[in-house]
């Protein structure tokens, strides 16, 4: 759910751009530092960005009978951490705006704030809180919450821009939450389930990579030898 071009009033578009800027600059600095120290990671980061973009081409069944696509926010935040996601989301959202006409240029800041900042941090917080107790539940919650947080933030952004004449900002937010709930709430649940399936598959075929990223515990050397 990206806010389309021209949808936000200029002041709101500028304010959300200013709000998202520190997170994007922080992420970009991390990328610059990483490239200076380990040039080879540039390619892994690019692979992560391309993967996040391509996720929008994967159709998911929705309970409303239609289909939707995963946002990849939860997956990106869990695997690559939120600061990197702020930068990668900016690149991906810019590409989506210009290659797919999803989102826009003046609304890029607002979309980055919801999908590249709030979503990843909400998902990552849920992951950190729950991963020590139940890994499957942690993955489901992280993915679903990242999606829901993105959708709620977008609704707040729209509610602030277009408050209801009678019930004010609260009414505006409730209206947008209600209209987009039809697709976004089922999508969050489906993306949570998808996350469990993806990480289960990755644990089977890419265990060392997940261990290096800290998603699954590293296998002790003695156990590896016994196997």
């Amino acid at each position, binding site marked *: 759910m990206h806010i*389309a071009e021209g949808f936000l009033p200029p002041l709101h578009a500028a304010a959300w751009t200013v709000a998202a800027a520190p997170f994007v600059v922080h992420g970009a600095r991390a990328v610059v530092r990483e490239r200076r120290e380990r040039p080879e990671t540039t390619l892994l980061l690019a692979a992560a960005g391309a993967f996040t973009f391509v996720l929008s081409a994967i159709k998911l069944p929705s309970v409303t009978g239609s289909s939707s696509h995963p946002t990849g926010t939860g997956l990106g935040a869990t695997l690559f951490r939120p600061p990197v996601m702020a930068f990668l989301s900016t690149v991906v959202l810019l590409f989506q705006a210009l290659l797919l006409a999803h989102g826009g240029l003046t609304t890029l800041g607002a979309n980055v704030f919801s999908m590249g900042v709030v979503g990843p941090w909400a998902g990552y917080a849920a992951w950190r809180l729950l991963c020590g107790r139940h890994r499957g539940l942690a993955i489901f919650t992280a993915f679903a919450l990242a999606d829901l947080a993105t959708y709620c933030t977008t609704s707040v952004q729209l509610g602030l821009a277009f408050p209801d004449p009678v019930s004010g900002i609260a009414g505006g937010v409730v209206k947008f939450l*209600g209209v987009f709930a039809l697709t976004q709430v089922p999508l969050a649940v489906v993306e949570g389930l998808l996350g469990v399936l993806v990480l289960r598959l990755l644990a089977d075929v890419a265990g060392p990579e997940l261990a290096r990223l800290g998603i699954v515990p590293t296998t002790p050397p003695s156990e590896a030898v016994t196997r």
Partner: protein
Amino acid sequence: MSRSLALDTAAWSSPWRHRSVADKAVLTLALLATTLLLPVWPTAALSAAAALIVLLGPARLAPTVLARSLRSPLLFIVLGAASVLVSVSWHDGPRVAITAQTSTQALTVLGRGVAGTLCVFVLAATTPMVDLLAGLRRARVPEACVEVASLVYRLLFVLLDTTRRIREAQAARLGLRDRRTTLRSAGTLSGTLLVRAWGRARRLEEGLAGRGYTGALPSLDPPGRVSIGFLGATVALVGVIVVVSLLGAGPR
């Protein structure tokens, strides 16, 4: 999958492909600024008409590509405008109403949304992403960030093709027959895609390391000469829109 990147394909074959990025960016941003900053009517209609004439005229964008690319943003704009159109209140029970104020606001959103989207298409359908990234490099955006974005773009097509092939294989094996299997197939597809992306990045890294990769993949920049004639035409077009808009200003 090239259908889904139809705007990019159109940009590569556009007659404006070799125009300076600065020329096209100025035209797009000037039209966008006019659309957003001036009174919505008749500005939105004029900007949308100007963008349409540019796209279907000198930029020679196929009408079918334009219509297909507009579908997704239009859905969001219409749904958003419908939400603005309706006013809700909770005093004495939930009430829904449509007022003159909400109708005006919904029309504003609709007009600016459609016009703004068409203005962005002027840049998107005439400028391939590599030219834009070269422009960002010239604008002194940090080299590392532009490099990551360039590599994302290069990897996109391989991954989109892989997605299509896996999807076709899953469909041929009845992997999309109901919701349960479709979800399981989507999970397998996402996981496989990530592993393939990692694998490709690693192989690319090894290949480049053997060729002395230091973190930069320089390529020839597209022509960067700004056309005074083009900029003059842009100023004239936007000037006409501004004058007509201010003379016939409707609600802001």
